[in-house]
């Protein structure tokens, strides 16, 4: 009841509603721009939240996440260029529908499925986040260290590219986090007499660098995207049509719930998995790839559900499950909030305020999605060099605004180059971001645990929660090693034709 009254007060007595609306509009526009992913959209909005109350700021950022997931489907359907990675599955049948003159229908399906998926996602967030945070309250320093290790292992093993590269970037992230004051003695490390590094490197500077600046550098060499017809109008599906699509809708949302709460999976995996499962369970699987409404509904419901459920590990454990939630977590840190179980204890107003803002953002998505389509198409049709150049200026201005520091801007550009090289060499970003975010927590809990045990590392296996988490970590890595190295070798041996008989 307290939660409900807090949520109501936040909605009626603060700027939560306009913030949700602004975040949503920003998110849809950002998501609709090819190359500007949901995480970059959130990162670009971050500097505009500095003067705001933390609750309002995070509502705005989380609403942008919600909006970006829908916005990504607009260019996916109209020009076969997904605005966000998670809209790539939508592009397959969405563009086919567009070619058949059914783009309005595809956009309508995407909007309705996204809204329903989003509401299911936020419902699951409200249902799961606090109970999980209560469990996390029982965590001791060794358990927290093991949780950080498990989070990094999950992300590293599930990341694109090889698992070894995931672990390398995760370790590099922890190294970046080690710059600045030592958590126990306060001795500065790796600062090389630079006053700007005395407080350490802000995770948000790293994130904007490796997500946004690296993307802009990559986009510079890419050809311009196609232009869309400005005459498109949304055609909403009838209730009868929606009822006929219920299986795909539920499949997409179900997979979205599961993938959202699993760190490392994210909206893209959920969308493609939903596409495949919807096809498997469809009465008309032969229509997939030829403009099937089910193929729009399932991935869109999935990636919009993930926008809510990906916040579960972020808020309950302080471990972001995707690039977008990593930026959101960075936003919370920037506003003086430490995500994790204590967030629910210390800042219940914030938690319930954010929940209420997210419900409103998902409800508003429906009317806003209809109204904003024409401006989005207009923006997508602007010349790419202009759009990218303004965005570059906005990124660099935003990073300066974090701490009034040109050093931070230079650092952000450095991480942009690093991100560009990581992309070139096939290294995943997310483990590094997670390492930067979790670095302080992992080190301080490691040292606290050893201080409690008098230097005995056995504490990590004598603490039952820590032991359970370490076993989960070992199982996960072993399974990944098996699927990456042993199974392909075995399959290759089995597939090898038998040598001809000498008889």
């Amino acid at each position: 009841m307290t939660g409900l009254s807090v949520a109501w007060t936040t909605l009626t007595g603060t700027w939560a509603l306009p913030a949700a609306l602004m975040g949503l509009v920003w998110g849809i526009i950002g998501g609709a721009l090819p190359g500007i992913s949901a995480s970059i959209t959130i990162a670009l909005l971050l500097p505009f939240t500095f003067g705001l109350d933390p609750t309002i700021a995070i509502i705005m950022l989380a609403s942008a996440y919600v909006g970006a997931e829908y916005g990504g489907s607009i260019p996916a359907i109209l020009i076969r260029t997904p605005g966000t990675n998670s809209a790539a599955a939508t592009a397959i049948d969405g563009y086919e529908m567009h070619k058949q003159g059914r783009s309005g229908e595809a956009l309508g399906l995407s909007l309705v499925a996204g809204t329903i998926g989003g509401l299911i996602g936020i419902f699951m967030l409200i249902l799961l986040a606090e109970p999980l945070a209560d469990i996390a309250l029982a965590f001791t320093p060794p358990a927290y260290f093991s949780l950080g290790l498990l989070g990094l292992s999950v992300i590293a093993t599930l990341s694109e590219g090889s698992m070894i590269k995931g672990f390398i970037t995760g370790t590099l992230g922890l190294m970046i986090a080690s710059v600045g004051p030592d958590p126990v003695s306060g001795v500065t490390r790796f600062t090389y007499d630079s006053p700007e590094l005395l407080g350490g490197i802000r995770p948000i500077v790293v994130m904007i660098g490796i997500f946004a600046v690296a993307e802009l550098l990559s986009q510079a060499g890419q050809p311009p995207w196609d232009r869309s017809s400005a005459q498109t109008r949304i055609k909403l599906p009838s209730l009868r049509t929606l009822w006929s699509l219920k299986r795909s809708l539920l499949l997409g949302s179900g997979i979205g719930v599961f993938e959202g709460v699993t760190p490392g999976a994210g909206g893209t995996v959920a969308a493609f998995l939903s596409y495949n499962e919807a096809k498997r369970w469809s009465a008309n699987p032969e229509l997939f790839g030829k403009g099937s409404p089910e193929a729009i509904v399932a991935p869109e419901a999935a990636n919009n559900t993930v926008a809510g459920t990906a916040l579960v590990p972020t808020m309950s454990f302080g471990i972001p499950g995707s690039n977008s939630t990593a930026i959101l977590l960075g936003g919370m840190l920037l506003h003086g909030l430490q995500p994790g179980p204590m967030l629910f204890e210390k800042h219940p107003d914030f938690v319930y305020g954010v929940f209420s803002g997210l419900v409103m953002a998902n409800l508003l998505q429906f009317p806003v999605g209809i109204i904003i389509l024409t401006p989005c198409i207009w923006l997508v049709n602007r010349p790419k060099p202009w759009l990218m150049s303004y965005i570059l200026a906005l990124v660099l201005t935003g990073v300066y605004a974090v701490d009034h520091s040109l050093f931070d801007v230079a650092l952000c550009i450095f991480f942009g180059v690093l991100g560009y090289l990581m992309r070139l060499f096939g290294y995943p970003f997310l483990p590094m971001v997670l390492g930067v975010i979790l670095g302080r927590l992992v080190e301080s809990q490691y040292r606290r645990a050893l201080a409690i045990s008098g230097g005995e590392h056995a504490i990590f296996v004598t603490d039952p929660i820590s032991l359970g988490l370490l076993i989960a970590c070992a199982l996960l890595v072993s399974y990944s090693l098996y699927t990456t190295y042993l199974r392909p070798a075995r399959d290759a041996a089995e597939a090898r034709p038998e040598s001809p008989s000498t008889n």
Partner: protein
Amino acid sequence: MTERTHTRRDLVSGIVMLGVAGLYWIEAGKLEISFLDDEVTVRGFPNLLAYALGLFAIALIVQSVIVLVRHRPPAGESLADPETRRRHGMAIGLLAFAVGYVLLAPIIGYVLAATLLIAAAVWWQGARLHWTIIPAALAGAIVLWAVFVRLLGIQLPPGLWF
């Protein structure tokens, strides 16, 4: 890009990472231990990270060598490919403008530096060279300045003459 290109890049990056691990370990060894330190000391965790990175780098090197020796994947696209070089060239150009912005902003101020950045980036990315680029870039810079300084109250570099 072919498997061979990937594997060779893995080998190169593995060697670089091994170097990074070594450097980090040397630097960690130079950290001063405070009397306030615990048993792990200020060097303990960085040393652990250096060992971990070294181990992962060696694993990547070994994996790449095995793939190169056993499977001998065919050679493919390389950095010498004209299209690849063009793409990297475009990125390097944009990077140079961004660095130029950081160097110029404290001297000529935010508005002028951002105007130059936008105009140069627009031109570099293929827009037709026309006098309208400058006023359009200036308008963009002024809008950003107004939003940050006037609306959000965040000061931007004023430059030496303000």
